[in-house]
């Protein structure tokens, strides 16, 4: 097994190579505005560092969000193109699940990433591999009672310390953790977000902002 993993659903542009047992190479940089520029050089870098030939890669692992859309799509279209060009499967994993797995927290906790517009993407977890609620997007104030007192993972939680009072590591997504989770799932035959060979689809959670242009404006004075 040789997995190439990456995630662009958060400000972290992260890529890793994993051989089914361990992370061979990982690269993570935090830059919310340059996902498109940073991802492929990072992929190239981890493959070189791992000494891995591209045609030895057996699967692509990609974080499917939720996350701000423009960055999120960079990872997803890259994964789809790699899968097609190399003829290998693409395994989609919820980005929050990667953070949960990396935290290793045993017991109930929440993961929250920054959704901008004063909102967070978040979900409840019963353990590092057990999500207990669907990913959602909300204003932190509106979910305060639901997350009260729970350990909270992710940079989105750290932005709202008045709501998330027990901040734990990690803050940022790691493709190494995402790949390790994928390797564990593959070893145990657990399903991915995209079952049955479907393309890995993004978790947008919000409908597109479609500004309907204002009604036709008259040029003649009223």
């Amino acid at each position, binding site marked *: 097994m040789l997995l190439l993993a990456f995630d662009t659903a958060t400000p972290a542009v992260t890529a890793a190579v994993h051989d089914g047992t361990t992370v061979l190479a990982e690269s993570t940089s935090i830059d919310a505005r340059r996902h*498109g520029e940073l*991802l492929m*050089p990072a992929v190239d870098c981890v493959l070189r560092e791992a000494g891995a030939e591209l045609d030895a890669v057996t699967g692509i692992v990609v974080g499917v969000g939720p996350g701000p859309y423009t960055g999120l*799509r960079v990872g997803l279209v*890259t994964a789809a193109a790699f899968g097609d060009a*190399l003829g290998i499967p693409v395994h989609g994993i919820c980005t929050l699940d990667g953070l949960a797995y990396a935290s290793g927290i045993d017991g109930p906790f929440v993961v929250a990433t920054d959704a901008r517009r004063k909102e967070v993407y978040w979900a409840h977890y019963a353990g590092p591999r057990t999500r207990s609620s669907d990913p959602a997007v909300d204003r932190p104030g509106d979910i305060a009672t639901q997350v009260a007192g729970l350990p909270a993972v992710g940079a989105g939680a750290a932005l709202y310390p008045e709501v998330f009072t027990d901040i734990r590591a990690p803050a940022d997504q790691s493709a190494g953790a995402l790949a390790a989770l994928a390797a564990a799932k593959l070893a145990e035959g657990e399903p991915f977000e995209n079952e049955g060979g479907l393309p890995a689809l993004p978790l947008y959670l919000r409908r597109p902002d479609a*500004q*309907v242009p204002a009604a036709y404006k008259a040029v003649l004075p009223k």
Partner: protein
Amino acid sequence: MADEPLVLGIETSCDETGVGIVRGHTLLADAVASSVDEHARFGGVVPEVASRAHLEAMVPTIQRALKEAGVAAGDLDGIAVTAGPGLAGALLVGVSAAKAYAYALGKPLYGVNHLASHICVDQLEHGALPEPTMALLVSGGHSSLLLAPDITSDVRTLGSTIDDAAGEAFDKVARVLGLGFPGGPVIDRWAKEGDPDAIRFPRGLTGSRDPHYDFSFSGVNTAVARRVEERRREGVEVPIADVAASFQEAVTDVLTRKAIRACRDNGVDHLMIGGGVAANSRLRSMAEERCADAGLKLRVPRPKLCTDNGAMVAALGAEMVARNVTPSSLDLPADASLPVTEPHVPGHGHGHG
């Protein structure tokens, strides 16, 4: 390989996911998936809707193009992609896909300019472009007169619109007339039933002291709106066909007049017309008449190659491969406001291979 490079081109600058494959000047495939119907009810292209559609359509459209061309991805000599100008989020989907295919297949990547591609596509129709090429580029986002000594490296602006693009003017007039979006094709259809001389709409920037090669379409737009509103206010039926025909006549009159003048002034013996508005039937017929009268050779690609497509990107990419242009690096950015004067986008230099 260098003479007739086999290149795949990806175009996602607006609402069409285009993938084309060319061998030198020969078109092998032109696959397009459009999200235009999803935008129609909004009266314009909604960027987020377009970007989502690009992501879904990307791989299937690539597969369709390869099948149509009957070539294997491994045989390609290069992958070209629109790096700009266009909608930022939409461009990023195509650029990211192109990088991944280029990297996975071990092929050189070429980030190219959408506007130069609209010109270069004519090589698929009429063979090698003359050097220099005089081009009138008219689309929803641009209206320019360009002189290109070398389409891969040297494109110069002689003039451009100071307000709306020609295609925008068609959209606005269609909205005023209640004909929906996009405006170009529907105005063209209505105009066929109308009298182009029924109303004399203003010709912008055609006075003797006006800039020779710049365009302005806000005046004709306002005049059309005023005309239509007056009729409606008086409770008189608006002669849609006559308004459409007269508006179209005014716009095409200015475009062709200025383009022919630019050819004369610069001693060029031909005129190339590219961009979505070049699909307009009246612009094509008027350009044909006037170029013939002026002794100029007219080069306009067939309508399907004038609207946004991947073949035009592949055509420019193939020209770059043929001329040994240095490929773009893996950190190639999408540049929403890439100037027309930069046909090739090298990236910052974190190359691979």
